[in-house]
């Protein structure tokens, strides 16, 4: 069994491969869904991920023209979310270029495969800066070096440089104009920024194409040696890798709920009686 011909790589799938190639195989080649618990406290975990999703939705609504007051009025029963929201309103959009695209997906190609990136927000000014903004709602601020090595930082900047021309008056965006900002709304809107360069882009391209080629060539996908990675992986029972970890030790910002393949809402007629 191998990866389907039209599979699109994303930061999520590449991070899976970087963390554990077996997980990549199970999720994307065998397409095995395994609904085991990720953490020992599933309901708290779910509450945090839903809050995160709600926050992203609020920002999207705001950027599409729904007035902030109307959105603020909907947050009376969730203090934490209201605090994140206030931090966003106060600092989230400061100094960003004015042309904004929220929840936009771009695609480029590499090593014969598509590579996708789904952005929370792209703020650009043709001829000027091109800023990628990613909202983070987790409770901890990671080390700069850790974040620099995450596939998200690598893939998002690379894809924008290769696929953002149509948002930049038809010109390829020079890597030096690209910056990626992670905005930690639970930390007062703290921002961790990563500049880009042509040299970094070449380095990223070599890394990404090497990974994609390795996946396409691979015949075996070994289990990770680092069993700490298994604690929050739903395939634990399949791999016989112990029990679920505690929520307090888990970095929620690393969690990807859905894979980022193209998705569609369900239609009402999908399960209607076939009749005429």
């Amino acid at each position: 069994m191998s990866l389907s011909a039209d599979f699109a790589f994303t930061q999520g799938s590449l991070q899976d491969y970087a963390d554990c190639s077996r997980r990549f195989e199970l999720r994307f080649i065998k397409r095995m869904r395994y609904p085991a618990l990720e953490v020992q406290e599933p309901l708290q975990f779910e509450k945090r991920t839903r809050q995160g999703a709600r926050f992203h939705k609020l920002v999207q609504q705001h950027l599409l023209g729904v007035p902030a007051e109307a959105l603020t009025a909907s947050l009376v029963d969730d203090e934490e979310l209201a605090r994140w929201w206030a931090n966003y309103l106060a600092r989230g959009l400061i100094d960003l270029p004015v042309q904004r695209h929220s929840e936009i997906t771009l695609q480029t190609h590499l090593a014969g495969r598509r590579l996708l990136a789904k952005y929370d927000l792209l703020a650009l000014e043709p001829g000027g800066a091109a800023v990628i903004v990613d909202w983070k709602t987790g409770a901890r601020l990671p080390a700069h070096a850790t974040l620099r090595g995450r596939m998200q930082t690598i893939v998002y900047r690379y894809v924008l440089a290769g696929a953002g021309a149509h948002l930049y008056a038809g010109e390829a965006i020079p890597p030096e104009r690209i910056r990626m900002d992670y905005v930690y709304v639970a930390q007062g809107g703290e921002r961790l920024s990563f500049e880009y360069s042509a040299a970094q882009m070449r380095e990223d391209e070599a890394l990404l194409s090497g990974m994609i080629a390795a996946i396409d060539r691979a015949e075996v996908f070994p289990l990770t040696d680092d069993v700490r990675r298994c604690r929050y992986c739903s395939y634990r029972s399949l791999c016989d890798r112990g029990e679920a970890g505690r929520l307090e030790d888990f970095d929620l910002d690393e969690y990807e709920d859905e894979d980022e393949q193209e998705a569609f809402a369900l239609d009402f007629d999908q399960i209607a009686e076939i009749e005429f």
Partner: protein
Amino acid sequence: MADNGLWSNTDAQSEIIDAPLNCNIWLEGIAGSGKSSVGVARVLHLLGRGVPAESILIFVPQRALAQPYITALRRHTAHRGGQVSVQTIGSLSLQMVETFWFLIAGRAGFKHPNDLPNFLSLELVQYFMTRAIEPLVDERDYFNSVRIDRPRLYSQIVDNMNKAALVGFPISEIGTRLKSALASGVEEAHIFDDAQTCAIAFRKYCLERNMLDFSLQLEIFREHVWAEPSARRYLRGRYRHVIVDGVEEDNPASHGLLRDLLESCDSALIIYDRDAGFRRFLGADPDSARRLRDRCDLKKTFDETFVMGAEVKTLGAELAAQLDLSVPLKCDADPRPALITEAHRYHPEMVDWVARQVDMLVRERDVSPNDIVILAPFLSDALRFGLTDGLSQRGIPIRSHRPSRALRDEPAARTLLTLARLAHPHWRMAPTDFDIVFALMTAIKDLDLVRAKLLTEMLHRNGQLLPFAEVRSTAMQERVTFDLGERYDRLAAWINRYIDDNRVDAIDIFFRRLFGGLLARAGFGFHDDVDAGNTAQNLVDSARGFRWSLDFMSRYDEKIDLGLDYVKMVDRGVIANFYLRDWIADVEEGVLIAPAYTFLLNNRPVDYQFWLNIGSEGWSRRLYQPLTHPYVLSRGWSPGAVWTEDDEQHLSRETLGRLLLALTRRCRKAIYLGYSELSESGYEQRGLLLETIQSMLRRHARVEQHV
């Protein structure tokens, strides 16, 4: 012919594909004439000309119809840029209502405009409909003369509400329309009044709790979101190029939206299949679709089929003509070689014959299993099983798709539900011995039926599983084997520990805990099993959606015992095992076994079709649905007109004629007819399809005699 690098186009196709980027095009024709290929090529052309992908909208009545576009875009690896949107009226209205909710909820009449909306899936609509109107139905003795079960009654009320929204009339007119067209007496008039009262009661229930069923979602989209300047600006600004495929299968609500988009977009291509419109029961309205033609600058017709052989072409035309449909195709071949049949007395003989013929096609004639479909008006479990079994034994891969298969019918789901009942004795829904045998067999790897029965007989007591040590006889223990006994013990201990700990997990969490903690481990039945994992995930997703809706409701209403109500819903067959990923899997290899209309809506031609149960009335008759009516509730219906038995007959003939035309247009070589004198349930059958085929064959025989 022109070449776009993927395939060669005719001049007519190229004219449309390469049309200017500020041109609205109407393309109509028959199935198999290459219309969708042109649509796909036009999208690629737009991308090639530098049109931003985000500004392209592919709009279809049902997602399955967008598959050729999605596949082509996924294979278009050279593309750098954004993503093309694929939407239906359902998905687009949901996104728009959700995004602009806080701007419109108050004026749309919701009682809690600062709270989030709760969009209901079909299964949740059924559930809340029951909660909302059952007290009313019981108290006032509604529908007492209608002999169908309540879930089906309620689903017809939902259907009426959806039609009102899709067609564009207020739900308060449902009763009047149905009464004036269909009620022949006081009793029937009452039934339609009752249906009307229930629809209004459910609407009120939703507005008070921020719940949106499909009909309300659509109504809010049309009446409020579309009237909201920022929402309209966003949609019009975003979608500059619109490609619409299968517009005749869409409804007036979609057509209204498209009409507006056509005014503002830069270019459009609207594709209309002249002989389709199968989804009338879902509000499809080809006449309303056709009005979009006037809004287009360039109008083209494709009548040349690239699919059918001459004999199949004549066959389609003659069968349709036999049913009073005129078909403007030149056909002079003898259609009989395109029909292959063998009469059988009993149904299983027919099923066996089908399996043998498929086997012969695959092995002796090298036909790809992907190029064969087996179709029936409805696909019962027994028929599906008979075919699946017959073909699997011959090593032939199968794709079986039935949209409304109930989750309770999937072995993995049944097992999880039985174990949930055992773990929640306070529900007072102890499973039967039969269910436990089945659950043990599925849950414990290598446990066969005989041993599962033995374990159940010896160790199941009033909804409790006793430990294996309670089997006193060593001979019996050996017969079961200690290895299986040990795994049985782990299962029983897991359940009993859950009961003793007094845990009351949410039902979806319970399923996940049981899955990961036991059933997916080595030695148990779900370990490394893709199907079981998928079904378990579907069950979890559905139960979680249910929990979220009930949690949401609990701010306005009393608490509900979620787990118990959920299990009851699954038991009633309300919950379907149907999620997006199953459709993706549907693209895989194999002979397709499906209801005829599902095949049509997948829109992929094949070499050979098998039509089963050709004596069945199901090929031409509507389902018995006394509370609703696709024609009376359509836009074209004249107020005050009466629906007669003649209309019904005419409709049956027309429906069958269109169906046969559509099927033959998706067939390249031949059609095998599966016929048995006695139906699956043992009755003689002489439906309209059988009659039509026989008349056609007799006519050819007469002509031959005269020659």
